[in-house]
């Protein structure tokens, strides 16, 4: 191997006194970071191969392994950081586009971390969710802005027919992750957890394996620019459809599943030959403007006889509010907005880290815009992109989202350590890989249980926070920005978020 000009990113420290040379680390590392020498019965490391996924350190039975980030080797320079230099060395060596996985990891301000929640004192009793009902049920879909009545022979009846709705027992859905980008077991766990928790998971653009049709009532089927796996049964079996226009991690560009990952099963699911690259074009080749999107929305509605909501997923970009307005006017029943920190299985680093806007601002801008135009009721807003905990979720809902999509959080629940190497197909945790040796590491039963636990834990926390605010139904918090206050923000940012500064009373 040619000499590279940058040091390994991680150091593997092996405590020789603890190491029993059992070779667990050797077997667990798909990147060959650990090497067994049979002559010597000892293990050594190739640190240049370590990606920092911590699989070996987690599984080492004697706790002999510690993975550390390599201390700074470059001369300190505020402008030319170690990362900037390393990226240049890598590109000088390869001449390629730098790839990465997961969401943007750059230190842009997190508005969630600058928003604080309210709680009741004296004038308004807080509500104890352990003793009083606390409702998180959420309906997604187009709603009329009023109910009409009509006289009938027996009396009076509803004259308003509600469009198809998705019913969620908690306002959290699993976001789009395709079969291909993640393993069969990972998809299966998401489907089962969504069913158990009374919510939905999203197929992503990889089609739906026939074995998962039994979870159709909890499935949102995506129709993306590659149209992989889109056929009549796929549309019929799902509870809702989603047209994917953009993704927060890579707004404006398409996707690429390398042929190496296209196994027999994936080939059948995606309806492409085994071993061929699955390329999703940047735009849909039949959508060059909003009127084309309208045609696709209604083509899908026609194909499913208006029996299920059809949503559109867009990335949060500068004009997200008017774009969302156009999408609603085009007939979408749900608009999913994916923010700057939304994850991916593979994206050019430069795009992931520099394109798009934070989801917090996007939610506020879209919700305000749709209300100004009087069309907020016509579509539900689902926010996506980097929700780390239940507080992020509740803040997003108070800003105006109907529900949130989580994906990174779900992967972490299954074991992901955010090494950001999903695009290599060598996920040591058995999630973002198709290698049978690796995928069998993810026990679908355990993964399902962990996902259910995560949803349960977050839902309980949301109930506690709601009760603290003196609210016992999530719809009373939705778009209720009076319960949010900002710290450390400029006037302009507060205005866009539509919230007051901390210290300002009602």
């Amino acid at each position, binding site marked *: 191997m040619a000499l590279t000009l940058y040091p390994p990113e991680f150091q593997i420290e092996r405590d020789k006194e603890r190491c029993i040379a059992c070779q667990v680390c050797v077997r667990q590392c798909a990147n060959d970071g650990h090497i067994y020498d049979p002559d010597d019965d000892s293990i050594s490391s190739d640190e240049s191969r370590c990606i920092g996924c911590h699989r070996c350190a987690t599984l080492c039975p004697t706790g002999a392994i510690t993975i550390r980030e390599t201390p700074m080797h470059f001369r300190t320079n505020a402008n030319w950081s170690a990362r900037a230099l390393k990226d240049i060395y890598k590109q000088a060596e390869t001449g390629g586009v730098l790839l990465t996985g997961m969401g943007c990891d750059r230190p842009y301000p997190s508005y969630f971390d600058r928003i604080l929640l309210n709680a009741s004192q004296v004038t308004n009793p807080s509500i104890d969710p352990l003793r009083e009902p606390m409702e998180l049920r959420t*309906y997604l879909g187009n709603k009329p802005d009023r109910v009409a009545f009509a006289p009938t022979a027996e009396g009076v009846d509803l004259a308003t027919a509600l469009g198809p709705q998705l019913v969620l027992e908690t306002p959290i859905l699993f976001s789009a992750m395709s079969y291909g980008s993640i393993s069969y077991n990972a998809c299966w766990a998401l489907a089962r957890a969504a069913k158990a928790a009374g919510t939905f998971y999203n197929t992503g653009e990889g089609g739906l394996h026939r074995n998962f049709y039994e979870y159709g009532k909890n499935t949102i089927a995506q129709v993306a620019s590659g149209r992989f796996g889109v056929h009549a049964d796929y549309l019929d079996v799902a509870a809702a459809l989603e047209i994917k226009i953009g993704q927060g991690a890579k707004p404006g560009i398409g996707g690429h599943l390398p042929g190496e990952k296209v196994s027999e099963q994936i080939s059948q699911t995606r309806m492409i030959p085994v071993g061929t690259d699955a390329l999703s074009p940047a735009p849909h080749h039949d959508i060059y403007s909003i009127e084309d999107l309208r045609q696709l929305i209604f083509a899908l509605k026609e194909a499913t006889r208006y029996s299920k909501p059809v949503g559109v997923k867009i990335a949060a970009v500068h004009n997200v509010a008017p774009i969302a307005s156009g999408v609603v006017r085009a007939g979408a029943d749900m608009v999913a907005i994916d923010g700057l920190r939304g994850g991916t299985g593979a994206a050019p680093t430069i795009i992931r880290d520099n394109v798009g806007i934070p989801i917090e601002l996007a939610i506020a801008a879209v919700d305000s815009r749709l209300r100004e135009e009087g069309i907020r009721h016509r579509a539900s807003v689902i926010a996506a992109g980097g929700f780390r905990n239940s507080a992020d979720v509740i803040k997003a809902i108070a800003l105006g989202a109907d529900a949130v999509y989580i994906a990174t959080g779900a992967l972490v629940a299954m074991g992901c350590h955010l090494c950001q190497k999903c695009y290599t197909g060598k996920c040591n945790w058995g999630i973002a890989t198709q290698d049978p040796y690796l995928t069998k590491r993810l026990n679908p039963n355990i993964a399902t249980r962990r996902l259910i636990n995560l949803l349960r834990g977050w839902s309980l926390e949301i109930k506690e926070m709601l009760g603290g605010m003196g609210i016992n139904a999530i719809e009373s918090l939705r778009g*209720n920005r009076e319960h949010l206050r900002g710290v450390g923000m400029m006037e302009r940012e507060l205005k866009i978020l539509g919230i*007051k500064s901390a210290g300002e009373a009602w």
Partner: protein
Amino acid sequence: MSQFYEKDISGCGIIAIMNERGLDISGELVMSAIASMRERANGLGGGFAAYGIYPGYRDYYAFHIMFDNLQAKDETEALLKTRCFLEIGEPIPTRPNRNITNPPLLWRYFLKPKEECINGIGEEDFIVGVVMDINTMIGGAFVASSGKNMGVFKGVGYPEDIGDFFRLDEYEGYIWTAHGRFPTNSQGWWGGAHPFSLLDWTVIHNGEISSYGINKRYLEHFGYRCTLFTDTEVMAYLFDLLIRKHGLPLELAAKVISAPFWDEIGRMEEKQRLFFTVLRIVYGSALVNGPFAVVVGHTHGMIGLNDRIKLRPLIAARDGDMLFIASEDSAIREICPHPQKVWMPRAGEPVVCTLKSSIQEDSSLWERNRLLRQQWFGESYQ
């Protein structure tokens, strides 16, 4: 106007009295009832709504307006004159009360909209527009009430002093509601006292609305501008929207504002379940959350309502034709020592009091509402 409006938090005492047959009740009665709940107020606001007090002008909209200064009065009158026929404009009679200081200019106008100004939007919407314009565009002017044959009398002080100041002992009406306020801020603004009113809707309210932020934004969608520095006005506007504009009967409007829990809906029989599911889905943003006890008055009756887990007191009583709703039993017994029936309405269960006399003008609406009521709540309801 700033992007944000103030919300005012208050604890309070409320009482409402009605004669089912529409017979007149003296203002004295309600004043002594509210006075018995003096502990529930702190002298920063008191007020009354009275229905049936202007029978001689029953066809005119009675505007009770507060002015900070003469300029505001001139501007308001100029606005009224361009859009309405003013039959009478006069100061509201008052008498000096040593506890009432610094009142604004208090005037009442009996008016009818000019046909050519209504422009097809409907007379009531036109009046709402006039009220909203005065409240938002003219500094120092505030419309306290704007209905027919009714009026709101309110200000800064204990309610019994406010009643004395407005000489309410000289008025007679078939519905009276009264409110003593215990605000947790000290904004001494006359307009901030209860009842809040729009057209013939009046609201007296004890509580804090935790869902205010979304209720306000929801109402903006339908053209209501919340400008009164209080959360109570959303209650008035929600009733106006649901009943007058969307045609829901009172009971159903109450079931939107204090919506049944999903569990409860789940236990209903199928048709009813679908009905209430749709209602909650469509009107989720109109659900009023947080502790409240409220009495909404209107020309044809009144309704008492609690939040869905009853976090504020509300008690009701009946004695012959007389109906009572109050914060405390004591306030009712002050004026009716031995009512035939006294009951505690359950959380979210409306107390609907409807006039038996036949002054309902819109009979088709009334008939439809009666059918709806029968269908969803059964004959035995109330």
